[in-house]
């Protein structure tokens, strides 16, 4: 056993422990801000695993896209909707958690059995290591050109869709003064459009178109 392979084993153990405990924290912690930061830690650990798998380009893309964009987006969403609300108890929640835990455990055992009993064709051809970036570029511009272009169209569509969905385009008019009501921030209280039970007294805002 050489020093390099020992180092690799230790690195794998540390990174996988970070991934497992981090993901458990993401799911189980009551404070969602801690969950979001732990999610960033999980993404970074997965990028480290990619580095161990001779994939430096995908590791860099993981750090840039997941940690830099998705995690920041999730933190912004938490900041925008982080209202302290007491979630009402629903009956049978513990039983539901137990049942779904059983289902997930069964799924895990199934996957474990598939992983450990399938005769994988290892060792395959030796990995190309640092030339992976060049090979990915060749793939993206020859045989994966159509999915590459479709991905750009998908990103454009999702960008426009996110803007259309998230902008506030319901204009309200104040009954008392007749002015347009200000396009309030999300935290400012305003009449919800789809309230579950109609309020008893009429509110001061009426929606126009």
């Amino acid at each position, binding site marked *: 056993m050489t020093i390099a392979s020992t180092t690799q084993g230790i690195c794998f153990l540390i990174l996988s422990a970070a991934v497992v405990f981090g993901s458990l924290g993401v799911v189980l912690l009551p404070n969602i801000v801690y969950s979001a930061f732990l999610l960033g830690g999980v993404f970074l650990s997965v990028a480290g695993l990619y580095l161990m798998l001779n994939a430096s380009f995908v590791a860099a893309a993981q750090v840039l896209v997941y940690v830099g964009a998705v995690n920041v987006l999730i933190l912004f969403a938490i900041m925008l909707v982080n209202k302290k609300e007491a979630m009402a108890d629903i009956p049978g929640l513990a039983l539901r958690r137990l049942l779904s835990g059983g289902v997930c455990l069964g799924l895990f055992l199934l996957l474990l059995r598939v992983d450990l009993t399938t005769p994988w064709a290892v060792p395959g051809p030796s990995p190309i290591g640092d030339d992976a970036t060049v090979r990915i570029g060749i793939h993206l511009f020859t045989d994966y050109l159509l*999915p590459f272009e479709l991905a750009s169209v998908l990103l454009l569509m999702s960008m426009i869709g996110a803007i259309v969905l998230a902008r506030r385009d319901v204009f309200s008019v104040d009954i008392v003064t007749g002015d347009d009501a200000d396009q309030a921030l999300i935290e400012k209280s305003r009449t919800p459009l789809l309230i579950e039970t109609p309020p008893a007294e009429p509110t001061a805002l009426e929606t126009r178109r």
Partner: protein
Amino acid sequence: MMTTNSIDVPLQAYLVLAAILFCTGVWGLINSRNAVRVLMSIELMLNAVNINLMAFSSYIDGQLIRGQVFAIFVITVAAAEAAVGLAILLSLYRNRETVDMERFNLLRW
């Protein structure tokens, strides 16, 4: 540069790690009350799939690294999904003033 995969970390270790991560994501997806946490669980599951793709790409398909190309496409789709999902969540929060998944029952009979 020719590199070899170490014998210390077998392929199965990566697959078992991805299975653990995926099942954690499924459990969180089912049991979260907060809608943001549901989106985070989806990201966990996508990362588990990516670990699988990268492990197979390195161990079995070492010369034509098609798994890495697939992982890049999965990362792209995940970014688009996160943006649209959070926009839907903001719109829903603006209309219902809650992020409790149990109260998002507009489409229930």
